[in-house]
């Protein structure tokens, strides 16, 4: 049993969901008994429970915000947290979080996971978060003197680096991609790893007005939600036609193959209705079904993935694959939440990714020059306009970048865009226009 009474937290153990309170109690108990040579306070998890209970009672946070903590040479990867009730809860006087750069697509050996857990039990709180919203492994809670120790062991024994935090490039993250998924339009792991290595300086040291995230989705299904969570979203796409196997389409219609890979088996939804469940749900209305043959007018298809998700054995992504590049997603901080905006409709994604890196650097230079403190790229684009952003990227406007025809009737021309410019010869003018 844990030392502290936590009646309010105990409520969170009721019900059918797994409870983080139960997890914390389990770890607190394990720490009481363990004969591991603990380098952090044995009672830290107990104290964490107590402090959280107090937080619920007081309805105020008892953590101070941030601090000067980190490992030598790095300006990211450590998130400093100090408790404001250190006398009562000495175990969490300093309780810093470390972000550990996950491997692309989060493939681990069980040996590696054991090593991380062993290290964090000994030199941390034993509490982890696999994985944080950033994608990293989150090691929750250690003391200031342990930071360098953990870092040394991570880098020397586990061949493992810290991830990004603060005004740095954040740890790039990608979907499982070609490792397991037939929808992957490019190798998300390869480019995620390459970008992580290429931009090590930006990842480990503050470089920008605020955070910057790359996320790589292999297709528009968006398993890492790049469109909502990344300043630069790289989302797989193809530019030729969806491949159709008409025989397999008919097998779906005839009930021989279960739609959606059999996912909706929780209740009886009746026979598969291709018209209702696929054709009528196509957002661009570019599909047809005549009872025998499925048709797709690919020019209109916006690669929403719906039809392919429903009938993966019959429909496959095209063969001329690459990605669409979008910029500017963010959570609400200075301004409201925002999704990324389509900026490059299609680009081949092939090593060494020079074309993409070129754009990255142009965008970073622009944002570093023009961005205000704590202004995300998406907010800067909003403030200065998408037209300006296209100029910075040296891209031409394209109808695919807009969702609907303009609702703003004013066009602001630049002199260089107007044949002949603004200047006129007054004598020529006077020949035609009297004073």
């Amino acid at each position, binding site marked *: 049993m844990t030392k502290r009474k936590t009646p309010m937290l105990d409520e969170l153990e009721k019900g059918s969901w797994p409870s983080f309170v139960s997890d914390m109690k389990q770890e607190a108990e394990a720490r009481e008994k363990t004969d591991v040579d603990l380098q952090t306070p044995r009672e830290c998890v107990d104290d964490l429970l107590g402090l959280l209970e107090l937080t619920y009672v007081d309805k105020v946070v008892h953590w101070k915000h941030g601090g000067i903590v980190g490992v030598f040479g790095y300006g990211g990867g450590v998130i*400093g947290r100090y408790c404001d009730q250190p006398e009562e809860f000495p175990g969490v006087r300093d309780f810093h979080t470390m972000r550990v750069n996950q491997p692309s697509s989060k493939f681990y050996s069980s040996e590696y996971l054991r090593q991380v857990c062993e290290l964090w039990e000994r030199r941390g709180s034993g509490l982890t978060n696999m994985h944080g919203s950033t994608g990293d492994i989150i090691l929750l809670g250690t003391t200031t003197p342990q930071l360098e120790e953990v870092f040394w062991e991570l880098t020397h024994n586990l061949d493992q680096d810290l991830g990004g935090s603060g005004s740095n490039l954040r740890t790039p993250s990608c979907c499982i991609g070609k490792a397991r998924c037939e929808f992957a339009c490019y190798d998300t792991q390869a480019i995620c790893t390459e970008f992580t290595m290429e931009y090590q300086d930006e990842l480990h040291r503050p470089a920008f007005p605020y955070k910057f995230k790359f996320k790589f989705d292999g297709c528009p299904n968006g398993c890492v939600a790049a469109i909502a969570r990344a300043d630069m979203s790289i989302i797989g796409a193809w530019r030729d036609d969806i491949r159709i196997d008409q025989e397999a389409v008919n097998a779906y219609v005839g009930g021989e193959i279960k739609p959606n890979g059999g996912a909706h088996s929780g209740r009886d939804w009746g026979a598969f209705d291709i018209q209702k469940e696929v054709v009528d749900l196509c957002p661009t209305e570019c599909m047809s079904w005549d009872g025998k043959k499925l048709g797709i007018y690919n020019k209109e298809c916006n690669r929403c993935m719906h039809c392919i998700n429903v009938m993966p054995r019959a429909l496959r992504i095209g063969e001329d694959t690459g990605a669409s590049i979008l910029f500017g997603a963010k959570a609400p901080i200075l301004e409201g939440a925002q999704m990324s905006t389509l900026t490059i409709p299609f680009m081949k994604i092939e090593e060494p990714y020079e074309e993409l890196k070129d754009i990255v650097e142009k965008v970073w230079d622009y944002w570093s020059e023009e961005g205000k403190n704590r202004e995300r790229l998406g907010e800067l684009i909003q403030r200065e306009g998408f037209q300006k952003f296209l100029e910075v990227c040296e891209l031409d406007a394209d109808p695919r970048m807009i969702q609907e025809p303009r609702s703003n009737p004013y066009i602001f021309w630049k002199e260089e865009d107007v044949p002949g410019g603004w200047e006129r010869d007054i004598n020529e003018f006077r020949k035609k226009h009297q004073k």
Partner: protein
Amino acid sequence: MGPEEDRQLIVDTLKKKKGKTKFYLKDFNKIFPDRKPREVKKLVNKMVTEGILEYWSSGSTTLIGLKGAGKQHDTEEKDE
């Protein structure tokens, strides 16, 4: 200006700011208006490694100040 003068200019500028010990990266750009932010960033990060400056981080934002100046933990500006 040579690298030593650059360092001195940064230190002097920060010392002059009364009541404020932590600065955004952009504040350093203002010290060198003619340089690329990327160059300034490199110098500032180098000065941290050299122990002249230090980082302060909330977790989401990073500020930079003279080593040892101001609060070591918690924010100085509560409105942040």
